[in-house]
């Protein structure tokens, strides 16, 4: 078994940066920004104190408030009101500045949605590649502007549809792709130079990217014109989504190879989508989503730099993927804080000078975990609010969930409502006309700043544990997330938090909405197809190609992308390639987080 250690991949970066930033943030709070007159701001502070003791306190004594304590969903305690006094330390040009200007708090592009609206990108995939091909075309016809592919569980884990491990799971939660033959069917009649494609795949990402390149080649589309995103964020798999194949360091080695390959050959391809979405869905709060996701991002930056790549170039190809859930203002503050932290750290810690490499561009998906199977039409409202938060937070693309997703994969009717929700926000609400319209809200600015501080607190803690890879191996972020999920569940259980239709306003007779069904024949069909393929392909060529793949798995100085590309073109299957990796690196058992 070949063991790769993190010191093989990650050079030492100076310690203590996070602690310094945290201290800086805390001490900065005592200053008064040049925007304010010191005397006037102190007068305001005194006035607020008087308002509290003379107006507010007597009022609530007579009319008690609904709760003894108000807080954000991540537990940040909230005052009844915010004033300029709370943000007196924030310097406009230094902390906010203009859209398209460092530190990009107000948005990554100068004109934001006045130029181009965000991309409507609905995640979809089920059944056979032909089924999904049909759905993709349906979405394109309804105004979707980018594709986003969901793969089934066997594909996500790197198993073929005829594997015993795939039994009962083929085509269930996404589309089944085991070979180039499936990939060709998936993108049939969709010209890959005219769409941008996002592929949500992690452990076997290198194989799926190779398959995509191979399909493009067959369509006559040159590799450098391909535009899209592959998720390829393995760190959050260990933290949250838990779809891995090998130990962490082995996967990081593969990601490094992909970074090298894509930097050279795919200038328009985002080869890691650093994802907070799954971290949040697994039970994290906004602070944890922000902190763990960005720390994963910094780890990939260090991975690339350790491999000798220039962050001024490769960081332009890193993109992000966040969740948007129900605490409206906290979500907006989170997106703004994320942009500011990313730009600041890349500039200060990693010496990035290229402005394009400082931009935190992100996709957002509304929260699946916030949907309820009870009274499912309410989910349309939830999704609309979450989508609005993402837009006010400056997202570059957006997936809105369908209202029936707590029950099943979405029906076509429900998907259309989800797409229409985005179109209504885009065209009817007028929110896209002014950039970052919530900036300057005392509350939103204060909260943005607060989330930033809390994120630095986590960065410092993770450095103390030896960095993100070591923290993951100790189960630290996993435990933090689960503890938060349990706290949240108990709040619902005890009705401290109200979820409409779940623990309050419960309907007597629940009507089950139209439920989407995947075809049970899919598994049989896919199994037969791959078995036929294994007989009809040139097996000698496959064997030779796989031997080359093995050599590259065994020798980390060979870039894996090239032999894998060759193997998939010879119709070697996903599992044939991944099994070699499993033989060379072994698998992974997660640390106990009970």
């Amino acid at each position: 078994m070949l063991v790769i250690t993190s010191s093989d991949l990650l050079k030492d970066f100076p310690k203590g940066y996070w602690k310094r930033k945290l201290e800086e943030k805390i001490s900065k709070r005592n200053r008064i920004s040049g925007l304010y007159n010191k005397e006037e701001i102190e007068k305001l502070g005194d006035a607020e104190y008087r308002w509290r003791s003379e107006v507010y306190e007597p009022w609530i004594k007579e009319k008690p408030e609904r709760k003894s304590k108000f807080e954000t969903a991540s537990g940040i305690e909230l005052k009844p009101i915010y004033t300029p006094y709370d943000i007196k330390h924030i310097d406009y040009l230094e902390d906010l500045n203009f859209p398209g200007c460092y530190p990009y708090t107000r948005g990554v592009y100068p004109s934001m949605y006045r130029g181009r609206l965000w991309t409507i990108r609905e995640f979809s995939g089920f059944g056979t590649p032909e089924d999904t091909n049909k759905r993709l075309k349906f979405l394109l016809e309804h105004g979707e502007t980018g594709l986003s592919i969901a793969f089934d569980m066997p594909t996500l884990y790197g198993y073929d549809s005829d594997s015993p491990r795939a039994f009962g799971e083929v085509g269930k939660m996404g589309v089944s792709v085991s070979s180039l033959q499936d990939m060709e069917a998936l993108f049939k009649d969709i010209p890959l130079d005219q769409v941008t494609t996002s592929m949500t795949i992690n452990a076997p990402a290198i194989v799926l990217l190779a398959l995509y390149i191979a399909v493009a080649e067959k369509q006559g589309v040159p590799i450098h014109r391909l535009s899209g995103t592959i998720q390829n964020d393995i760190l959050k798999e260990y933290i949250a989504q838990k779809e891995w194949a090998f130990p962490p360091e082995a996967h990081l080695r593969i990601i490094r190879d992909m970074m090298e390959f894509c930097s050279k050959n795919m200038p328009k391809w985002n080869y890691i989508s650093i994802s907070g979405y799954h971290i949040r869905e697994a039970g994290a709060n906004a602070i944890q989503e922000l902190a763990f996701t960005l720390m994963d991002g910094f780890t990939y930056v260090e991975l690339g730099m350790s491999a000798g790549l220039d962050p001024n170039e490769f960081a332009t190809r890193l993109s992000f993927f966040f969740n948007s859930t129900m605490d409206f203002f906290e979500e907006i503050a989170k997106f703004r804080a994320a942009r500011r932290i990313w730009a600041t750290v890349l500039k200060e810690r990693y010496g990035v000078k290229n402005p394009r490499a400082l931009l935190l561009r992100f996709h957002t998906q509304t929260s699946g975990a916030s949907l309820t199977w009870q009274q499912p039409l309410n989910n349309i409202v939830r999704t609309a609010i979450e989508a609005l938060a993402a837009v006010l937070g400056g997202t570059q693309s957006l997936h809105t969930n369908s209202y029936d997703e707590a029950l099943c994969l979405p029906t076509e009717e429900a998907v259309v409502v989800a797409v229409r929700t985005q179109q209504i926000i885009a065209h009817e609400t007028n929110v896209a006309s002014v950039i970052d319209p919530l900036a300057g809200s005392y509350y939103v600015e204060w909260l943005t700043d607060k989330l930033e501080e809390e994120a630095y607190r986590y960065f410092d803690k993770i450095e103390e544990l030896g960095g993100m890879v070591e923290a993951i191996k100790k189960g630290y972020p996993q435990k933090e997330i689960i503890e938060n999920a349990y706290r949240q569940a108990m709040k619902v259980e005890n009705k401290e938090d109200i979820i409409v239709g779940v623990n309050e306003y419960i309907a007597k007779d629940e009507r089950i909405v139209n439920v989407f069904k995947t075809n049970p024949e899919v598994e049989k069909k896919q199994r037969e197809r791959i078995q036929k393929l294994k007989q009809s392909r040139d097996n000698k060529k496959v064997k030779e190609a796989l031997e080359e793949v093995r050599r590259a798995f065994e020798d980390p100085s060979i870039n894996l992308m090239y032999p894998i590309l060759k193997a998939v073109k010879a119709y070697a299957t996903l599992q044939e390639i991944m099994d070699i990796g499993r033989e060379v690196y072994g698998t992974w058992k997660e640390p106990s987080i009970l």
Partner: protein
Amino acid sequence: MERGRNLQYFREVINKLPKRIKVLVAKPGLDAHDRGVHVLMRYFRDVGFEVVYSGILATVDEIVQTAIDEDVDVIALSSMNGAHMVHFPAVIEKLREKGANDIIVVGGGIIPDEDKPKLEAIGVTGNYGPGTPLETIVSHILDRLLREKFKIDSKV
């Protein structure tokens, strides 16, 4: 199920049982959606059950073997990826084959209403969806334990 049963209430009921109840929480198949089971396991622990976890990606054989080795009273199966009609019956079958069909099996996850009677017919009960109150789940398990294991004809 009536609401208002809280952690403290369950703790007292469970304390009075003649033996410590051991629950195996298991996720069969390729299903990593483990937030729910982790929340549930913490609740089980807090009401006084002893909890064993299969980890994700457990095979049916591994689940049944663990249940037997650990001598558990209950298996709580979770499936969030639509493969429950494959894996849940397979667990029941295997338990029968191993002569361990005295173990109570309950299920949960994304389970369409129409599948519920089929699962109940083979002995997998509960089959609650996301957002089900934790007390409902524990009450259900306790009801089955009292009736089937301790032959007590009363409800929690």
